[in-house]
């Protein structure tokens, strides 16, 4: 069944698909695209959806990563406790006590030494990641081994819900970006507006060095690119105004630069103008924020003209990433107008 808007975002957020193990979300995305574009999975797992050109215009790639931070099981001990190596940058203090999921359906909680037996120093410092284990409720090694083995992948557990006028969930910034791409594909397919070839890349391994985007952009060799992702919104207490990267509810983020990319000035100006002309709420951000996929896409092959359009996201890399549906709508509208 084709889902739309918040239902689509909810479904995407709730799928467990960490870097290197994106199959579940890839299959879901392909199902949602259906016949609206030609889809394929490339050699590194990227979902590539192509809509052929209807006019002589530059080839554009629109890119969002579909993976999320997670962990890989490195040991199942004699007591049936699961030890793991995490990746993608979730801090340990955001894991302890949380629910997780391994292999998409084995639920666990992340646990560590009980607070009552912590020594003074241990109480005030976050528990290091290698002291945190996953408890799957198994009574011994054999019963744990029936469900989980070394090399299996896990993530934080699904937790999408509405919080006032916002929504929250794990991997929400990037998965809402994937939803924006899916809805863009549908609107392009339904519209008779002329455009050049458009390649939609739902990329793998965005949380561990943008390797999927590197391959996707090399193969597609676009002339222009739009990178879509969640971007930090530090519009929260204790952050001085001048360090606030973006604001929830402030509209689609158009980036001038990120930590490793200076976006194409002419295309950035075009995006700003487009937002203004169409009454789309936007915020122009010039911050050396996270390293996005722009760094590799812009400089693939002979280079391309690259811009970044992002969804403001609070509490990134936690089980409760928070976005504003209005910002999501603005991002969809802006991408739709730009192509």
């Amino acid at each position, binding site marked *: 069944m084709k889902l739309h808007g918040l239902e689509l975002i909810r479904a995407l957020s709730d799928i467990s698909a960490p870097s290197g193990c994106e199959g579940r979300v890839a299959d879901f995305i392909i199902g949602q695209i259906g016949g609206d574009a030609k889809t394929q999975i490339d050699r590194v797992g990227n979902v590539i959806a192509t809509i052929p050109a209807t006019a002589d215009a530059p080839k554009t790639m629109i890119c969002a990563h579909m993976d999320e931070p997670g962990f890989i099981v490195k040991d199942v001990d004699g007591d049936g406790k699961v030890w793991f190596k995490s990746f993608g940058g979730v801090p340990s203090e955001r894991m302890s006590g949380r629910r997780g999921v391994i292999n998409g359906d084995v639920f666990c909680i992340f646990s560590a030494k009980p607070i009552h037996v912590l020594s003074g120093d241990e109480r005030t410092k976050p528990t290091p990641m290698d002291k945190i284990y996953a408890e799957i409720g198994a009574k011994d090694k054999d019963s744990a081994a029936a469900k989980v083995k070394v090399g299996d992948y896990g993530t934080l557990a699904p937790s999408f819900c509405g919080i006032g006028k916002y929504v929250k969930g794990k991997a929400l910034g990037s998965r809402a970006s994937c939803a924006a791409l899916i809805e863009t594909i549908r609107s392009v397919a339904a519209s008779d507006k002329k455009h050049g070839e458009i390649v939609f890349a739902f990329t793998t391994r965005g949380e561990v060095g943008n390797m999927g985007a590197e391959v996707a952009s090399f193969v597609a060799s676009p*002339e222009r690119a739009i990178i879509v992702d969640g971007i930090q919104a530090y519009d929260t207490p204790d952050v001085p*105004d*001048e*360090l606030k990267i973006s604001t929830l509810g402030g509209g689609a983020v158009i980036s*001038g*630069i990120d930590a*490793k990319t*200076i976006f*194409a*000035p002419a295309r*950035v100006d075009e995006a700003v103008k487009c937002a203004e002309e169409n009454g789309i709420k936007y915020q*122009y951000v*010039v*911050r*050396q924020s996270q390293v996005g996929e722009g760094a590799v896409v*812009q*400089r*693939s*092959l*002979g*280079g*391309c*003209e690259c811009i970044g359009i992002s969804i403001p996201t609070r509490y990134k890399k936690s089980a409760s990433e928070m976005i504003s549906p209005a910002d999501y709508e603005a991002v969809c509208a802006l991408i739709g107008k730009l192509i």
Partner: protein
Amino acid sequence: MAEIEYLRKFMMAQGVSGDEGEIADLIAKEIAPYVDEVYKDAMGSLIAHKKGRPGAKKLMFAAHMDEIGFMVNYITDEGYLRVSKMGGINFTAASFSHVVFKNGMRGVLVPEARTAVQNYSPEKVYVDIGAKNKKDAEKRVKIGDTCSVVSGLYHLAGSRVCGRPIDNRIGCYMLYEVAKRLEKCENDTYFVFTCQEEVGVRGAKTSAYAINPDYGCAVDIGGSGDVINAAPFAVVLGEGPAIKVKDGMVICHRDVVDLMKKIAEDKKIKYQLEILESGGTDTCMLQQARGGCKAGAVSVPTRYGHSEVETIDMKDVEGGIEIMKGMCETVLA
């Protein structure tokens, strides 16, 4: 002999990383009479192509045209500007300096009051343009505008000069001189003025991919071991251009190093060899583009890099120009 007024012209045009339009347009205009075509690529690098004989090897020169600087990222209620650093800014050197925007507006880059020198950092400095408040500032400057420390070029004793941004308008000037002086172009030669080098050798990567050269030669400033308390480094000002052997990101191809040495010896040009532990230039991107190419570099021995008093000896510049001209005049196999 090197013409200092041309160098000055190249130094006075602005081009902070990612915003190289002004310097690119100037170089395009100046070099056009001496090459067959001039164009820009998607990233913003400028390519001046001088065709060689049919079947000739491709020789790509690269000098980055961007300079370190700042980008406005926030305007405070008082009308001060917070900035992101574009490239390797030495905040001790940049603090209490005049900065200039593309439209000619001046400002001063200063640290917050009561900030110890060792804490000067992007978060602790701001630009004061003299605006009364935020509204007043917003009339004059926009988020995303770039600025840099005011350019200048001054004579010191003998053939030495100082100023900014000698890094790397000196390289741009040298390539321009090579194109101008060239009589016999044996190879299919590309003079590339790359963008975004100071923020991580970005522009050279895509230009080198597109051109797909057989030989590559970068030209940039180097260091010098002849300042007080310098780390041991066998390169000094005035003893000729430095032929790069290695730096932190590249080991130059022996054939290119040997070719440069032979040209220098044949033309009786003094030269030095540059062996650097760290740092890197466009050379590494030339070397690793596609299936790779034979790459090397000419470095101009430089004191006080990334300050407004970068100091070089014009005799070294002249030698570097002649070595690169010699490469163009050698039939590369």
